[in-house]
């Protein structure tokens, strides 16, 4: 459609303003991470006119970035050294993603290619597990884990994060398998290839991109998950989102340290999400809306 120059101008201006409005909280959070403790509390709030410092990152990661001087503790007097929690987050997200993608890829191949009588119901069942409120799962899982000594362990959290991501992974992978023309496997079958061989040699290479997109989304959902980790871990491990909420202490909130940790936790997710832009909508809609 043809637009007048004036309308075009307004459209571009408003679009930029809207997006910047959405970007502002992220930007502001970043400024808090590099602000000195006192400047966080200044009124009017400082948006750009502050002296940047790496002190918060130094306290959280225990690394000396060579600023004026490293500070270990801030408001509250606690120790905010959080590098091990970042490692916990990475371990949990990596292994739960790996498991979810493996289980889901196998299952979704069958759901895409092998008709059986109850297939429609099976897919509906998988979808309905996506609807279960986490709180209704975590209460019984807490007691089951307690009996199995899985509370406060990597295994426990990895398993539940895998389960949480399975419906998404299965439905998304199914949509990628559905995209491959049926003629390809039919001709391979005629050539005498076994199912398993065909799956390994022909189908898997063709859904590589889909597997990558599924893995990225599973990783991000595990990385950002809150309720399961909050409930099923106590002292030996915690992920970044849960540990962030503990920076609120009786003597005040360590905003600077929290923002530093939060910023560091967002950056890998930002990189990942930009890598899978093309498949993002399909992923967010469990494979039902294609770009």
């Amino acid at each position, binding site marked *: 459609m043809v637009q007048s120059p004036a309308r075009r101008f307004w459209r571009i201006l408003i679009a930029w303003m809207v997006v910047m409005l*959405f970007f502002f909280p*992220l930007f502001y959070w970043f400024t808090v991470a590099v602000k000195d403790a006192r400047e966080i509390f200044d009124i009017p709030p400082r948006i750009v006119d502050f002296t940047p410092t790496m002190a918060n990152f130094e306290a959280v990661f225990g690394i000396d970035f060579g600023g004026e001087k490293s500070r270990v503790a801030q408001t509250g007097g606690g120790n905010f050294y959080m590098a091990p929690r970042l490692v916990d987050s990475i371990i949990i997200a990596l292994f739960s993603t790996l498991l979810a993608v493996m289980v889901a890829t196998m299952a979704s191949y069958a759901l895409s290619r092998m008709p059986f009588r109850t297939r429609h119901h099976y897919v509906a069942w998988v979808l309905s597990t996506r*609807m279960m409120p986490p709180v209704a*799962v975590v209460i019984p899982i807490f007691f089951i884990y307690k009996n199995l000594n899985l509370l406060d362990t990597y295994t426990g959290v990895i398993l*539940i994060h895998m389960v949480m991501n399975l419906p998404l992974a299965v439905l998304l992978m199914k949509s990628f398998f559905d995209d491959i023309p049926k003629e390809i496997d039919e001709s391979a079958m005629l050539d005498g290839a*076994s199912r398993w061989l065909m799956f390994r040699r022909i189908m898997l290479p063709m859904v590589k991109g889909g597997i990558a997109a599924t893995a990225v989304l599973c990783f991000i959902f595990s990385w950002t998950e809150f309720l399961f980790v909050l409930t099923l871990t106590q002292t030996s491990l915690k992920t970044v989102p849960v540990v*962030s*909420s503990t920076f609120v202490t009786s003597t005040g909130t360590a905003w600077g340290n929290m923002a530093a940790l939060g910023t560091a936790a967002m950056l890998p997710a930002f990189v990942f999400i930009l890598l899978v832009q093309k498949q993002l909508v399909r992923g967010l809609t469990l494979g039902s809306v294609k770009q």
Partner: protein
Amino acid sequence: MTTLTTPTQGPGRWLTWDRPLPWLLPLTVVLLLFTVYPLFYNIWLSFHEYAPLKRQLVWVGGKNWSTLLADARFWQSIGVTLIYFFVVLAVELVLGMLIALLLDTDEPGFGFLRGTLTLTLVVPPAVVGMMFLLMEDPEFGVLSYALKSLGILDSSTPILSTPSLALAGVMLADVWQWTPFMVLIFLAGLRSLPSEPFEAAMLDGASAFQMFRRLTLPLMSKVIAVAILIRGIDLFRMFDYVYVMTSGGPGTSTYTVSLYAWQQTFSFIKWGYGATISLVTLVIILLMANLFIWLAKVRW
């Protein structure tokens, strides 16, 4: 893997790679263990309660269920959840559609704008809660400051500790994080619209609003339904923002059902009662979602 290919008779024939069973076995086992078994465990729990003196769960019959029906705070939490659900869903749908229409063009730089919008989706919701907690702080929060400067907010009103405003303060975090979700889905829908009906409508002299009403919306109905379904499920079980920002307060004004069930279970050690509340939440979500899937004819 060759062991799985030989038998053609007997029970073993179900375990060849030509059958769906071996492919679906890992998924089925995992889902049975982690969703179906906990569901029955939850039902069992709802007829028991923890007895602090005996230090164990004891059978209480239907007591948890009768308590639930008479529990004003439970019904209030259902009310809060419903308000949250409908208000946030409506705001995100309308705002998401408006922004999607705004961004649906090939102007230079708009790809960058769409990319920037996706960033909000990958921030941990708990961290989003902390971000808005800071920005809505009555003393030094940048948002409170802006609202006061504009004269919208009374200078003595703390957003998150005023009962009438607290829920709106929490909703804002949700709207900020998930409106881009709607925008991206709607953009994908807008991009895949056929151009012929719009060209025909243009020739007939239809206005932009008429075209949106009569063509865009009906053609996008499937995409909109999927967006409502997926967002709706998450809205009804919302936990992270309220836990981090208000813990249900001030008073009981921001208790969602999920938070109420969680607190009853893990803060007040009423294991059976918490399980009962969470079961009700589960049933409501499953009923609403499946009814919606059936009515809107969403298919996977």
